[in-house]
């Protein structure tokens, strides 16, 4: 009895301090980056205010941004930022005051800011450059990563070693980010626990996959996927305003990204997503157009784009309905996942049927391997030219490759591999270089597109 009273007394006394010891259990992570704004999100185990302290010097986080309410799910919009500028930031319930001694040595000031009691660690991000002019850009692409297993971690670590100190300007998930059901717990373990460093330093963009769709609904914009992510619905990151996070666009330097919902939005030729896509493609002035969505237009991996019943016809829809519009709009690169393999096409155009209707002489626009150190890079005119050809890449093995043998014999592909891995895109002005790294750290494919 005495012991029970003692425990009660201790808990009463300790209560307020325990209450104050709020822990960040998710993030921080970066969303909806534009040259002048960034959304910072994080989750705490207890409710508290949402404050981001930030500045361009690690030890001078003199600006603050807040959002209303006392919450556990924190979403703070940082506005009026400078383009292409590195910002340091910390999240917490109160503004992080500047260090007491501004004249202290840099190392001491850094330690002071990072080690202040009750403060979250200081992280940093670099805002996107002004839209339009070229800037060397690195993009990490992960398809179907969310297995939570050793393969996912190996793929991650290979990329980290590959990129080393080169910053990742943005990263893209092609759906099925969190197996098996895209629940909040799945997202915690498959995304937030796996990539904490990249999440707090590089803005993440995504499209909905079928496994994410088990816990989300595009029509109502509800469910875990839509709660976890903040994507631009108002065209604020570039492109035409879609009004939905299910499909949207954004610009980074001289690249225009088009993100489509191949899983849960209307894929009909006169549907809202198609109307928006046509307007968006017609409006962009960027040099490069990269489209990404979950369901591949062509695959002979763990899915078969020739089978009408595979994925309830979604691959057919994306190939027969959306691909012609993308090609007409001058798309350069199409990234998809869903099939847990790596498949990469030649520079192709105009193939909207089953694989047995693919005619290389008709559909392959350039027959070389696309390698600057091989048969030569793919070359496209800089002036936007409809139907000049695009590279289609299925890179859906960031979490696992197929455990069983798969055909890998679609004739649209130059190369098909049943290997786990992720892809890297480097854009430098008129040159786009693409690399596929497998989970063993091997560079298994690469190609270059040059605009001239």
């Amino acid at each position: 009895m005495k012991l029970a009273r003692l425990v009660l007394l201790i808990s009463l006394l300790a209560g307020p301090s325990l209450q104050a010891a709020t822990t960040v259990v998710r993030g921080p992570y970066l969303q909806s980056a534009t040259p002048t704004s960034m959304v910072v999100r994080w989750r705490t185990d207890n409710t508290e205010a949402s404050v981001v302290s930030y500045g361009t010097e690690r030890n001078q986080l003199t600006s603050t941004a807040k959002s209303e309410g006392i919450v556990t799910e924190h979403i703070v919009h940082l506005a009026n930022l400078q383009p292409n500028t590195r910002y340091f930031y910390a999240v917490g319930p109160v503004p992080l005051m500047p260090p007491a001694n501004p004249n202290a040595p840099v190392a001491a000031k850094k330690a002071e800011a990072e080690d202040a009691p009750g403060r979250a660690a200081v992280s940093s991000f670099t805002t996107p450059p002004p839209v339009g002019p070229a800037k060397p850009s690195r993009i990490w692409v992960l398809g179907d990563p969310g297995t939570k297993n050793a393969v996912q971690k190996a793929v991650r670590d290979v990329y980290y070693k590959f990129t080393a100190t080169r910053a990742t300007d943005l990263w893209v998930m092609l759906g099925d980010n969190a197996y098996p059901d895209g629940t909040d717990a799945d997202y915690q373990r498959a995304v937030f626990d796996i990539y904490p460093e990249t999440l707090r330093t590089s803005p993440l963009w995504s499209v909905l996959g079928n496994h994410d769709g088990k816990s989300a609904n595009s029509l109502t914009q509800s469910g875990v996927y839509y709660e976890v992510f903040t994507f631009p619905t108002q065209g604020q990151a570039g492109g035409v305003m879609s009004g939905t996070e299910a499909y949207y666009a954004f610009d980074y330097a001289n690249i225009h990204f088009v993100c489509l919902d191949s899983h849960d939005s209307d894929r009909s030729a006169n549907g809202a997503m198609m109307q928006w896509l046509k307007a968006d493609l017609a409006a962009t002035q960027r040099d490069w157009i990269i489209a990404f969505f979950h369901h591949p237009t062509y695959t002979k991996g763990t899915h078969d784009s020739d089978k009408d019943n595979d994925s309830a016809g979604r691959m057919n829809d994306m190939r027969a309905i959306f691909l012609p519009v993308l090609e007409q709009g001058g798309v350069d690169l199409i990234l998809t996942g869903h099939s847990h393999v790596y498949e990469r096409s030649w520079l192709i155009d105009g193939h909207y049927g089953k694989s047995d209707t693919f005619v290389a002489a008709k559909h392959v626009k350039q027959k070389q391997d696309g390698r600057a150190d091989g048969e030569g890079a793919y070359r496209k005119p800089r002036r936007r030219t409809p139907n000049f050809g695009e590279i289609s890449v299925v890179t859906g093995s960031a979490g696992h490759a197929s455990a069983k043998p798969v055909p890998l014999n679609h004739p649209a592909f130059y190369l098909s591999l049943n290997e786990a891995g992720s892809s890297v895109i480097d854009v430098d002005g008129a040159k786009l270089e693409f690399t596929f790294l497998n989970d063993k750290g091997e560079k298994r494919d690469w190609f270059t597109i040059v605009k001239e």
Partner: protein
Amino acid sequence: MVGPAAEIGLSPCPAVGAKSAASCGTFIHFPRLAGSLGSVRCFILPWRACRQAITALLLGTAALRAHPEIEAALTRLNSAIAAAPENAELYLTRGDLYAKHDAWIPAEANYLRAAELAPLLPGLARARGALALSTQDFHGAMAHLNQALELSPTDAEAMILRVGAWVALGNRSGGLADLEAALKLLPSPGPELFLTRAALHVSPADAIASLDAAMARIGLAHTLQLRALELEEAHGHVDAALRRLDTLARQSERRETWLKRRGDLLTRAGRHAQARTAYADALAAIESLPDWLRDSPDSVALAAELARLAAPQPPSSS
């Protein structure tokens, strides 16, 4: 497809040969109700003739072989059901899994089992309503969805599903009431729901007003503005249509196609001088593009057409 469903955009499935693993019938796709809610593909099931197959599927003895990605989930559920065969929620979950993959027969069988065990299980009536819509049993769907909303009056998903049933039964106003109620409940509905709401209005003025209300709520989403423009044009509201075109042009980095459309609209309205000004503005918009866009084949073709349209008309010979 004819009748009220077609009028609001419910149409035969455009998917190229989309048939499910379990299918041998006709699909109808409800594009305005896309998604897991309203991926309402309708399939006439001869399921009473297939009781043996249903039993096998209910017990998980026939996995969806055409959908390897769900085999693992199915295996987990089968094991859980084997361990707790009286757990109605597990049957509901397994039914949902089948339904998400358009396997209506085993979905129905699992829902029926769940209903036997727990008739008032949360979410069950809604799931059965969705399935009934999928099998074109609209009266059955209405009954299940009524029950779902009696049990949970703020279930927006059930309301949206019931819109499909109302419309299929020819009752637009019922559908509109449900959709309005659902939109009030949803924090950030997508534009498709607002387009559906506009389509349910009989009066064009009401439809346009509903689109304006939607844009006041979620922003000037392109598809909503475009639909409003189409309605204004179709009903001869030239100046209102011009204002919407101006908004669309301001939202676009490339204004030339919207200015061309402005010129076309003015031409149809007999306002030729204004039309030529619009065409000239479109031409100027092309001229202001960077050369690599100005010289693209599309731009070159459009510029040639605009130059012709913007040219002063020769005086009439009469």
